[in-house]
């Protein structure tokens, strides 16, 4: 019996409808209702969105989220791209082992990794101790921990394996013969990167960038543990609205405002790809 595409995708579609679309629609409706104490009620209103826009601290936290999200996504892609390139074209017999180690890193708990960075970056952490023992510093460096830098470092560490795998998969169809052809045609190393590799890897790189950006900007655990006073982000505010003050309507409006921000970022990046015509670059077999 032939199984059609509809039947194959039905379980996932039903799951998404029930557990993603339906709650999203419900929260969308919540955001236009009047917030009570751990409940929402009529009438419909735009007050929640007005409050989101007018609250000064939301702007500060949104800025923090944007900065951390952009930094984490940028550094993740910049570090992952050469790694993925090496894995695809130069790793040789090491490829299997390195890919295994990348996948194995997912087994380490998210929280363990965050606390590991605390023990690395703290006043008595490995970096400060190391620099002191080398005589490079007299006093521990305080700027390593409890700020955006620490949050960014941890998020890059957490998301890097995903990005490497996405980019490695993105490079898989790019046969070495492409690069050899470019070389035969006189392209130097840099030109091969700029005119062959980067255009072909642009789409997966942008996907990976957006993936890290959204998850980093929306994170609320890492900023609490590593962010200090300058690293608090908008996700914490959403958590407080739902759990702390029980104002589901305001929390939903805040979440949808953040979602709108992500969609704007997505649209801008898609527009950038279109203007540079990178969205039309395809592998041909």
């Amino acid at each position, binding site marked *: 019996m032939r199984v059609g595409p509809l039947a194959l995708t039905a379980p996932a579609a039903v799951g998404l409808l029930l557990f993603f679309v339906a709650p999203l629609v419900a929260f969308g409706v919540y955001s236009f209702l009047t917030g009570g*104490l*751990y*409940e929402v009620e009529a009438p419909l209103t735009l007050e929640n969105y007005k409050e989101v826009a007018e*609250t*000064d*601290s939301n702007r*500060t*936290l949104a800025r*923090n989220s944007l900065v951390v999200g952009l930094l984490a996504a940028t550094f993740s892609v910049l570090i992952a791209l050469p790694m993925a390139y090496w894995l695809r074209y130069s790793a040789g017999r090491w490829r299997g082992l390195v890919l295994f180690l990348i996948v194995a890193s997912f087994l380490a708990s998210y929280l363990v990794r965050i*606390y590991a960075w*605390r*023990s690395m970056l*703290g*006043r*008595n*952490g490995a970096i400060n101790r190391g620099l002191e023992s080398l005589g490079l510093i007299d006093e521990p460096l*305080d700027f390593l*921990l*409890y*700020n955006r830098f620490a949050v960014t470092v941890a998020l890059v560490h957490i998301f890097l394996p995903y990005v490497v795998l996405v980019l490695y998969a993105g490079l898989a169809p790019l046969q070495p013969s492409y690069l050899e052809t470019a070389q035969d045609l006189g392209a130097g190393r840099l030109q091969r990167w700029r005119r062959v590799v980067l255009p072909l890897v642009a789409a997966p790189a942008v996907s990976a960038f957006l993936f890290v950006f959204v998850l980093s900007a929306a994170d609320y655990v890492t900023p*609490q*543990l590593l*962010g*200090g*006073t*300058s*690293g*608090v982000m908008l996700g*914490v*505010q959403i958590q*407080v609205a*739902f*759990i*702390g*003050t*029980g*104002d589901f309507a305001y929390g939903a409006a805040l979440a949808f405002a953040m979602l709108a921000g992500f969609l704007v970022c997505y649209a801008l990046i898609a527009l950038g790809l279109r203007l540079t015509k990178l969205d039309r670059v395809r592998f041909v077999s």
Partner: protein
Amino acid sequence: MAVGWDRWLLEYNTRRTFLRRAGFTTLAVGAGPTLLAACGDDDDDGGGGGTTAAEGPAKAPSASGRVDFLSWEGYDIPDPLKPWKTENGVKVKATYIGNHDEIQTKLKAGGAGAGYDIITYYQGYKPLYQELDILEPLDEQKLPNLKNLFPYFASKEGNFWIDPDGTRTGVPWTWGSIGITIDTRRVKSMPTSWHDLLEPEFKGRVAIPDDPVGAFSLAAHIQGSDPSMTTKDDGEKVFDFLSQVAAQSTGVSPSFGDATTKMTAGDADICYQGWAAMNEFAAAEGVNSFETEVPKEGSFSFCDAYALPAGADNVDTALAWMNESMDPTVNAEAAVVLVGGVTVADAVKELPKNIASLYAYEDLDALLERSPFYNNPPIESDEFVTFEEVQKRWQEIKAEAGS
């Protein structure tokens, strides 16, 4: 661990009024817990006896089956309750929270009872939980061990556990007081005032747990206000003080455990809203240099009570659990596990020295005079700072501290 336990409101009676009424001011320093307990038995103000002549002697109900528990990890006191559970074949399905507000969120989101049989609430949450219709009345006839409670915890004081009409809604079983916690490896002398935390030497060295209402309650107390009745004008002074404290920190810790870790790692030296239990948490990490004291301005205390959520389906076993928590041995063992205070007078003599010395049981009234139990800020008020305002301003303070 009452990470994030917050605070209180409703029909406010001052601690001083209560003490006068209960005759506690005549108690001499050094009068032991037994004397306090004896006073409690005659307390006509409370509902703690749980026994009336008309109704006959109270008797704990039979316990059996599964109990669905919702509260902090450790508040199900697995080891102290083990003999009772084994004897009665009781199984516990525990759901642990990371923040007190998760209790009402889970109960309200999950409908009546949400499948839970027993919860805890911090005394300041009583008005909110009443507003949300979360708390079921407890049958005192099924809680014979209520007679074991210290008079204060058996009383109607603050209506934290007993409504004005005598309806009991909670069984207080663990408590503690807030203080300044320091790591003596780096802070050589204990500050005598909360305002010392604002000194330049502590810039970037202050740990603060992420407990908005607790932080506000303490700041209000320091500024001479009752957190449940802090006027909007006075509230600005309180928030200003909190902003100054936040500016001294490297960041707000999501829990007391995290604040402790921060201090043991050398990334903070002193804790605003510290807690004697942090000394023990640090000791468990191999650091024995923590000390906690209440400064001259005093602080506030917190008490957690077991309660029955609306819709609970194993009520008798939940009540039997609550009754067992007031057994002196169980109450003392729970205090050891949680590094907390006991609510049962006879439990004091069963405490090891380090736990017994945490709080001055021989002069409990004086201790609670300096560090009272407060209600949370009100849910709605045009005159006083509200619960929601505290939550929102705290987020603003955290955001502004780093900008």
